[in-house]
């Protein structure tokens, strides 16, 4: 029972701190580009403002359009719930393994794309089409990277996988290296960051994610924005805890938990900085360069898989 409580707390923490992470990234980015930075808590303010505002719906919007924000939010929260943030072996992590997690995100994307087409404008369709294309290409890469880990940890259960790397001690696995890079590239693509998509702009020809949610306003928009922040954090927590699990609490004593919180906070700040650097040096790609980008990511993950098979488990 205590486990479930812990899990709930962790999940809430995850959801609550997601805007903070987003704020951190924005802030660092501004700093990196010599711009005046908004406060860390700006995302919270935006969300509360949006939540307070009323909703404007397009005439052709059907119930799909209105249900989508809730579905997207829930699926993202579910995803967050199964990712070990500060503690391992929480009961929620048994609800779904990493494949299901991908499934959650896919469900969210499915509805988001439908919502984009629901209005019947050109933008919505455009956004959905591109989103599904990118998603379709990104999903196998994601799974390949995860499979690399899953096969060396011989589990698809996230917390099991994490504890495998944690207790395996410091083993240098070439496959993990490839997987890491692959996963980061996918993360960038999936969360709609530069060079795939630019969350900051509404330029008609380039936008993907924004094109789908163009018609949203008020609380719907708030939910969607929040969901995308959570999604971003899910990916980065995933990266952080799988490839550098150290510090995560495998027992539930206050000290270890505190340590866990501290550890994940540090990792995320670090990763945030990395992402910002990446986004600052990169330029937005043309849509039809994306396949090459993801193809390269796939190649990396494939290499990871093969190195695992050839170099690491050749023996038995």
């Amino acid at each position, binding site marked *: 029972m205590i486990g479930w409580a812990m899990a709930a707390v962790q999940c809430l923490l995850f959801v609550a701190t997601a805007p903070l992470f987003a704020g951190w990234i924005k802030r660092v980015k501004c700093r990196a580009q010599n711009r005046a930075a908004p406060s860390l808590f700006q995302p919270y303010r935006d969300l509360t403002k949006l939540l307070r505002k009323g909703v404007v719906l397009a005439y052709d919007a059907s119930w799909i359009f209105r249900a989508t924000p809730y579905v997207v939010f829930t699926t993202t929260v579910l995803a967050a719930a199964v990712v070990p943030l500060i503690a391992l072996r929480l009961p929620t992590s048994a609800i779904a393994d990493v494949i299901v997690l991908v*499934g959650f995100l896919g469900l969210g994307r499915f509805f988001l794309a439908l919502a984009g087409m629901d209005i019947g404008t050109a933008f919505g369709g455009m956004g959905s089409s591109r989103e599904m294309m990118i998603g379709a290409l990104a999903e196998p890469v994601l799974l390949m990277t995860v499979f690399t880990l899953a096969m060396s940890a011989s589990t698809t259960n996230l917390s099991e996988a994490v504890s495998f790397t944690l207790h395996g001690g410091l083993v240098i696995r070439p496959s993990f290296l490839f997987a890491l890079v692959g996963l980061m590239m996918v993360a960038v693509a999936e969360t709609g960051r530069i060079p795939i998509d630019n969350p900051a702009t509404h330029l008609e020809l380039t936008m993907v994610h924004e094109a789908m949610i163009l018609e949203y306003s008020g609380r719907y928009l708030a939910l969607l924005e929040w969901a995308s922040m959570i999604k971003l954090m899910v990916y980065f927590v995933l990266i952080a805890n799988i490839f550098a699990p150290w510090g995560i609490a495998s027992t539930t004593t206050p000290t270890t938990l505190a340590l866990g919180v501290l550890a994940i906070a540090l990792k995320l700040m670090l990763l945030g900085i990395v992402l910002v650097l990446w986004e600052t040096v990169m330029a937005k790609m043309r849509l039809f360069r994306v396949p090459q980008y993801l193809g390269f990511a796939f190649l990396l993950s494939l290499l990871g898989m093969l190195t695992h098979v050839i170099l690491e*488990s050749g023996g038995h």
Partner: protein
Amino acid sequence: MSPLVLAYLALLGALASAALSLGAERYPGLLRYGSFALLGASGICAVLGGAWVLLSGGRHSAELALGLPWLGWQLAFDPLSGFFLIIVGLLVGAVSLYGPGYMRGYLHRRRRESLVALGTATGLFVAGMYLVLLAADAFVFMVAWELMSVASYFLVAYQHQHAANRRAALLYLLMAHVGALAILLGFGVLAAKGNGFTFEAMRAATLSPTWASIAFALAFFGYGMKAGMVPLHVWLPEAHPVAPSHISALMSGVMLKVAIYGLVRFCFDLLGELQWQWGMTVLVIGAASALLGVLYALMQHDLKRLLAYHSVENIGIILMGLGLSIIFLANDHQVAGILAMLAALYHTLNHALFKGLLFLGAGAVLHSSHEADLNNMGGLIRRMPHTALYFLVGCLAISGLPPLNGFVSEWLTFQATLQAPVLASGVLRSILPVTAAVLALSAALAAACFVKVYGVAFLGQARSRHTKRAREVEIGMRAAMAALALLCVLFGVFPTTVIGALGSIPLMLVGQGPPSATTEGWLWLTPISPEIASYSAPLVALALVATALVFLFVRWRALPRRRAYPWECGFGEVNPRMQYTATAFSMPIRRIFAPVWDVEERIEESADSVQPAQVASIRHQLHIHDRSWLRIYEPIGRLVITAARRVGRIQTGSIHAYLVYSFLTLLLLLWVVT
């Protein structure tokens, strides 16, 4: 009283409905109520009988005084047949609900098709499928198999005033015949070695690895032809769409499954010792089918055709499961093998459900809007709310999204591929994950495809006059779709129960049940062990239900909400033609995977008469052809024609030539024998 009785009842019900519809020309009501009711009854019997034998296990055999003088029809009813009988029964039941309403469309036609043909062929078709599942010797199996093919041929050729349908029917029957003959040969090998047509004798047969492989190759070819695996799939997208929609549902949802049944029966039951090379073949071809199937589906804008191509994809996924199972079993990894087999069987069941649902939905759309082309639809969710809801469930299920049934079986398949490390051979260890990636890709593409379908057909604004005037279909058709949708949800939310029920099949084929899939209780599905992987669909469903409640609560609270025109970039009104069409939607993917298709795209710009610089109008033509068609089938066709022409030369018409023939034949023979 044994399960066989129920099976017989199902069979008789189907035959009776066929017989009853002979009178349909004079009394159409006979078909709409009588024979469909009988079909429904037979479906229920099939489900009950199947469930009974599936849960109780064991094999019930019988012999009918039909067939060859020295060998009556051997029938056997075991969990495997039972499982597939359930599948058939479910769909038949749904169709019998759906049919009467759909028949309306055929009654009020100026030039009326023969209802007799439709009803009789349907009954025989269903009866044939039942009989295939019950058959326990090669002869009755082939009889039933061909009965199934011929009956469905009549159904494909049903609307024969269109030349295209006739061509499709011919192609279908031709390829079905080829496949059947290959299967016959496969049995022939076993029968020759095991001297006897009965499955018992075949099980007893001892084959050299070579002959076993030959038998397998023949059977795989034959069943694959029927199941529509790449590159033998070309008949499928031609034939399935042109049949009446409820028949399409049966063909795509069930008939392909019967082919899968044949493959399972042949490989796992009759053939004995498995070889991993077979598994490899099945796996690779399965992966190819999955990917190509969905890629071709993405390019379609005829709804039923698109669904037909998705059958190819899903058959591919099922084959992947079977291939994995063969590989693992051949390497004596029972647990993984059974897991893969269960995944395949589960996906068979799921595909039957959601593909049936989708075809029925497509039929409903066709029925009320008379539109088959996605690019003419749009906004149907407002005109056909129920159909839209059920269709959405189908789309989610086929896209393999949690918590619906499609996801579970794909998840199990993934889990099976992840058992690769237990294999000794490094090659297999490295290939299996790649196929997993292919599976992931095709699943994601399927999602894209169904976003396209649903978004273009049901969302947005109506693109044509017909679609504007569409009305919700009548209660029976809705009930059929609702039932299937409900099943999709149930089988998605309570997978553990289903897996538990399927346990008796591997028990029969491999000799042990699924080890630990259900150990953690109904709430947790743990295919290998809780540490390795676990999935709790009920909890996920619970979370989603909670969201739904919140959503409804919010709607009920009716928080402030205002309607307005969407952002139209400053052009006045947003009109339907501004929407993305199906073709536009899939354009990025067409660009990326261009080599897969044989795309011919033409853009004609006609200059304005006043200012030649300006373009007055643009005509855009896009034709996408199936490569396998150009590469494989047309050459064969040409070959036959040429051979025929060559041979035709001997019939010169000159009597002297004929005399010379017989003269020379005589001399030749005399010379030979002396």
